C-alpha cells in the first residue's frame, strides 16, 4: 500500500541540525526524510503534541512531494518569522477559515498539470471544528484530493487558551473559567457523514498505528481526514514530559477512540481500550485544566460507555467487503 519503498534511499537521521529525530532518536530510520517536516529551531513549547504529530507525519511522508496549507493556529507560528521557515516543505499560511479552500486550489492545479503533489491541510481544532467548518465540509463534499490533518489540542492555543467546540466537558479555559458546560463535537462522525474515502483518528502513544495510518491517508486519493489528540502542556496545564502518557491514558480509558472509517461506512477500531477507571482518573488528574472543578468521573465513564455502544454499533453495521 505504502509507496515509501519507491522513494530514493535515505540515510539515518544523522546530519546534525537537519533532522529532529523521531521519538528521541530511537526511531530514526532509513525512511525518514532528509529534510524533516518540522525542522530544528522552531519555537513550539516543550512537550507540544503538535510537534510530535509533525514528526510522525514527516516519517510517513518520506520521499513524497508535499505542499501544506496551514491556517492561523500554533502550527503557523511554528514556521517562524519571514523569511525563515521551520517547515521542511512548502507551506501556504492561509487565513483562519480557509485552509481547505486554499488546499483545493493547490491540489486542482497540481492535478491539472499532472503533478503527483500530495496537498495537506494542517490545522488546529479551532480552524477545523469552528471557523473552518464550512470550508472543510465543502471540500469534503467535493471530495477534493486533500489530506486534512487536525491536531486537536482542545483549545485555541495561539490566542492564549480559549474554548473551542473541541474543548471537552468540564475543561477550564480562559473563556470557560468554571469549566466548559458542553461536550465536544464528534468530528469523526461529522466527517464520516460526508462519506469521504478515509477518516481516521490516531494516537501519538501508538506510533506504529499512527505512522501507518498517515502513510495510508497520504497514498489514498480524494478527501482524507486524520484527527490527532495533541497534548498541549501550556493549555492543559500538564507536565511537558507527560503528553504521551496522557494520550495513552485517554486511549486506555476509552475516552479517545482510535479508529478508522472507510467510505463513511466501514468503521474499524484500531486500538482496543480496557475502559480502566483508574486510567480515566489519572488522565484528568494529570491536567490542571480539570483540577478543582466538579468533574463527575462516574458521569464521564457513563458517557464513554454510551459512545462505545454507538461505535460498536457502527463497526458492526458497516458494510464489510
Amino acid at each position, binding site marked *: 500500500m505504502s509507496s515509501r519503498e519507491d522513494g530514493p534511499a535515505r540515510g539515518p537521521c544523522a546530519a546534525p541540525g537537519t533532522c529532529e529525530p523521531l521519538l528521541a532518536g530511537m526511531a530514526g530510520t532509513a525512511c525518514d526524510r532528509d529534510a524533516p517536516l518540522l525542522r530544528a529551531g522552531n519555537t513550539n513549547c516543550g512537550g507540544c503534541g503538535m510537534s510530535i504529530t509533525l514528526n510522525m507525519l514527516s516519517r510517513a511522508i518520506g520521499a513524497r512531494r508535499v505542499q501544506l496549507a496551514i491556517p492561523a493556529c500554533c502550527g503557523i507560528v511554528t514556521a517562524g518569522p519571514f523569511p525563515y521557515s521551520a517547515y521542511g*516543505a512548502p507551506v501556504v499560511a492561509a487565513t483562519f*477559515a480557509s485552509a481547505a479552500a486554499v488546499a483545493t486550489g*493547490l491540489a486542482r492545479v497540481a492535478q491539472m498539470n499532472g503533478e503527483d503533489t500530495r496537498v495537506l491541510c494542517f490545522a488546529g481544532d479551532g480552524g477545523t471544528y469552528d471557523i473552518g467548518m464550512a470550508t472543510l465540509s465543502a471540500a469534503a463534499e467535493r471530495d477534493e484530493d486533500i489530506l486534512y490533518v487536525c491536531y486537536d489540542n482542545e483549545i485555541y492555543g495561539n490566542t492564549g487558551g480559549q474554548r473551542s467546540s473541541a474543548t471537552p466537558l468540564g475543561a477550564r479555559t480562559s473563556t470557560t473559567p468554571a469549566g466548559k458546560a458542553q461536550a465536544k463535537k464528534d468530528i469523526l462522525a461529522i466527517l464520516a457523514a460526508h462519506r469521504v474515502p478515509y477518516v481516521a483518528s490516531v494516537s501519538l502513544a501508538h506510533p506504529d498505528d499512527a505512522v501507518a495510518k498517515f502513510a495510508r491517508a497520504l497514498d489514498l486519493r480524494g478527501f482524507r481526514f486524520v484527527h490527532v489528540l495533541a497534548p498541549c502542556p501550556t493549555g492543559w496545564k500538564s507536565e511537558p514530559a507527560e503528553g504521551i502518557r496522557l494520550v495513552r491514558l485517554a486511549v486506555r480509558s476509552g475516552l479517545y477512540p482510535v479508529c478508522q472509517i472507510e467510505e463513511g461506512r466501514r468503521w474499524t477500531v484500531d486500538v482496543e481500550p480496557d475502559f480502566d477507571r483508574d486510567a480515566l482518573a489519572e488522565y484528568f488528574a494529570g491536567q490542571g485544566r480539570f483540577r478543582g472543578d466538579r468533574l463527575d468521573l462516574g458521569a464521564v465513564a457513563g458517557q464513554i460507555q454510551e459512545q462505545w455502544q454507538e461505535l460498536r454499533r457502527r463497526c458492526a453495521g458497516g458494510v464489510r467487503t
Partner: protein
Amino acid sequence: MSLEFVSANHAAAMAAALAGRANERARGFGGGVYPITPQTECIEWLCQQEFARGEIVRVESEHSAMAVCMGMALAGARTFTASSSNGLAYMTENVFAAALYRLPIVMMAVNRTLGPPWNIWVDHGDTLLLRDSGWVQFYCEDNQEVFDSILLAYRLAEDRRVLLPVLVCQDAFVLSHTMMQTDVPDLETVRRFLPDLDLPHRLGDRPVTVGGLDFPHETEAHRRQHAEAMARVPEVYRECQDRFAAVFGRRPADAVECYRMDDAEVAFLSMATTASTVRAVVDAARGRGVKLGAVRLRMFRPFPEAALRSALAGCRRLGILDRDISLGLGGVLWAEARACAPAGCVVQNYMVGLGGGDVRPRDVDGMLQDLLARDAAGEPRLVEVGS
C-alpha cells in the same frame, strides 16, 4: 474577432475564459465561484465551459471562492472570480489576503447596494469598501470596456513590476444585464496580448512559508514594496494600453477620461455609467453657452492624482458625483478627489443614485443649477432621485 451581442456579465466571463485559455499551455486557469445577484450569470457562463487545462470550483462561500483563487494562483494558474455586494463584504478578509500575497488574481465585481434591507441595484459602496485592500480598481462605462478591462487587468496584474490583483467593476443591471454589441477577439489574438503567467513566488518544492509571520520592520518593507508596485501601475497601464491598441486595434480609456474639458470652467467628476448621463448634460449645457465639461475616473486605485489635477486645472466650479456614501463623512470619491481641484475652485459633493436610483439628465441638470448658483461649497448633499 467577432461581434457578439452580450450582457456585461457574459462579456466579463468571455474575457476571463479567453485569458484562461491563453494560459493553458502554461499552468492553466481556474477559480472558485459563488452566485450572487446580479453577478450570477457571469459565473454560470463560466461553469458551462470546458477547459483543456482549467477548473472552476463551485465553492460554498465567497470567502472560499477567493481562497481557491489564492491556492490556484500560488500554484501558478491564471485565476478569476466574480462577486457583488454582500458577497464582497463576506469575502473581504481574503480580498486583502490575495493582495498581501501579491497574487495577480482578476475579479469582476458588479456594484450593488449592501444590505440588509436587500436591494439588488447599483451602488458603489461595496467595492469602495475594498479601497484599502491593495487591489487595483477599474470602474467601467459599457460592456466593451468591461471586456477589454478584464484582458488588460491580466496583463497589468501579471507584469513583474506590478504583481497585484485587479478588480474590474461594472454597474448592476445598467451594464450587468444590458446587452450590447461587443467585439470579442479570437484566442490567437488574445495570446499575442497575454503572455503565459510565470509567477515568481509560485509554490514549488522549495521549503518556504508564503504569508507566514512578519515583525514590524518586515511589514514596513513589505508595505513599501506593495506601495511601490501600486505607484508603478499608471506607467505599466499606459504600456498595456499601447500594446492593447497594437494587438486589438482599439485603445482602452485612460485612467482619467476628459470630455470637453479644454476650456471648461465648470465640471462634473463621476465614475462608471453616471458618466454617460453627465456627457449628455454637458452637450446640452454647451448648447446654452455654459462652459461645462466632464471627467470620468476610470482607475480608482491607484488614485491617479496627477492626471486628475491636470484634468481639473482650469476649473472654477466642480461637482463630484458619488454613487456611495461614507456615513459620517460624505461621498468617498469626493473625499479623495477634492484635493485635486485647483485653489479657489468651488467643490461640491452630490451623492446621487444611491441604492440604484436612476440618475437622469434632469437630475444632473438640477445639480448643475445648484453648482452654478454657489459662491462657496456646502456640506455634501444627498440628492434623492425618487426611483
